[in-house]
């Protein structure tokens, strides 16, 4: 129980940390809104009312874009970039001697960050809905909502372990920026944040379904929209679940290997 309280306080501190510099925080939120609006304008202009693009009409596409914007805030936000700094600067030692699990510590930080992101993203998108009146589909089918919720949990955990694995590169190299940036580029395109992946040519789309990236944004959004049948939904959950377990195992393995090399020298 006391451990749970500790992790709750870690999450709460992360929230407080983020909003402590209010102007800086507002600039960051403005950036998020600007990116969203650019993508929104793009699809609004490409897909006028009544037209179709790869099976999507304007309403479906804009719901997808706004929906993935909310999901991005929740799923992709992370504090795990600090893990690499902890390793390369030697401050990891402070955490190793504390009576807390390093993974759970950073997961708590992530949850604090996600809580803040989701609150403000919902607010921002509400303002956009108020001004521009985009069509937004509200799912009411319980089954789709349940599978959506499960896929959301998988996506959050999958993203967490992905980022931890990237940060553990710090055990072997001081230069972690470049692999993280490459991961960010791959994520931007392959997670389905910019466009639904099923507009890609079919062979490419089937190939991407085997990669973990679509299970971060595209699959949860499609499950929410209810555009996958029951078999496809459960297959998506199964593959997403397998990727989540797989990255957990890899992260644990790399962590153990990395700790053997860790010398706490610092930069």
């Amino acid at each position: 129980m006391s451990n749970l309280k500790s992790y709750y306080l870690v999450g709460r501190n992360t929230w407080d940390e983020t909003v402590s510099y209010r102007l800086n925080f507002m600039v960051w939120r403005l950036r998020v809104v600007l990116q969203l609006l650019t993508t929104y304008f793009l699809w609004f202009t490409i897909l006028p009312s009544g037209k179709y693009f790869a099976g999507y009409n304007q309403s479906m596409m804009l719901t997808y874009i706004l929906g993935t914007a909310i999901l991005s805030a929740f799923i992709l936000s992370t504090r795990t970039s600090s893990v690499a700094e902890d390793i390369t600067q030697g401050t990891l030692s402070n955490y190793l001697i504390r009576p807390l699990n390093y993974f759970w510590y950073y997961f708590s930080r992530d949850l604090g960050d996600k809580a803040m992101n989701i609150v403000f993203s919902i607010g921002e998108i509400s303002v956009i809905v108020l001004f521009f009146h985009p069509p937004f589909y509200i799912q009411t089918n319980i089954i789709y909502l349940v599978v959506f919720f499960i896929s959301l949990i998988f996506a959050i955990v999958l993203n967490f372990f992905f980022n931890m694995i990237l940060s553990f590169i710090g055990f072997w190299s001081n230069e972690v920026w470049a692999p993280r940036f490459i991961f960010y580029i791959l994520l931007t395109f392959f997670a389905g944040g910019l466009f639904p992946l099923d507009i890609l040519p079919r062979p490419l789309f089937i190939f991407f379904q085997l990669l973990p990236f679509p299970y971060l944004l595209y699959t949860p959004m499609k499950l929410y929209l209810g555009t996958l049948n029951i078999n496809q939904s459960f297959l998506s959950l199964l593959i997403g679940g397998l990727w989540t377990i797989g990255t957990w195992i890899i992260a644990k393995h790399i962590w153990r290997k990395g700790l053997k090399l860790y010398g706490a020298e610092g930069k």
Partner: protein
Amino acid sequence: MKKYFIIYRHLVYLSFSSLLAYRINFFNGIFASILWSSFGLLSTFLLTSRSPQVFGWTRNELLVLASVYNIFFGLFYLFFSRNFAELTRIIHFGQLDGYLLRPIDSQFSLTCWYQGLYQIARIIIGTIFLVYILSLMHIHITVLHVLSFVLFLIFGIIILYSVWFMVLTTTIWFTNLSNLVDFMYSVNLVTKYPQEMYKGFSQYLFIAIFPLTLAIVIPVKQLIEKIILGDIASLMITAILLFIVSRKFWQYALRFYTSASG
């Protein structure tokens, strides 16, 4: 002026030496640049795969825009973006004094010190794809074409440089704005699409971002032979005005610099 050329030559040499010292970083940067520019082109390809025209532009014209976008931002990130990121850090930690005391112009010193040489990969990919698309469009490229394209590109970069510089100068008053550089990277996205996308949506929004919409679109219009005199005048006048204003704003802002770290 000669002094600045000599200094800049030395700075490029130092950047190159630094690259050779951190080779993995260099190759990672090249790989990231290749990925980023390839995906940019792929997105445009996808968006135009089911529609012959988007925003009144044909597919090939949008691919030209995407290629020029890569060249444009390859150049901007090569010469300036790292310096702008450093600028906010220098001001925040009260280190600007050292730069102000140098016997060279402070704006040059702060915005031209470092070069991101791995961006050359992005410029090369953009150029290769541009030449390919222009050949598909049967557009005959002459020396005059190339020279005027380069000139308009330079004016476009001046617009973006001036906007970035003016916005980041505000960190003299608001030293904790570490997210401002990331915000400006998002602003860069605005230049990726034709003016028609914003015009069609909101006239007010279009007016607000008008200078940025000129930066890449005018050089592209010159290449695809759709440019008019009004476009050239708009680009040049906007670039010159914005540069003068950004410089005046910087000199004004320096009066408020207190040299205390944030």
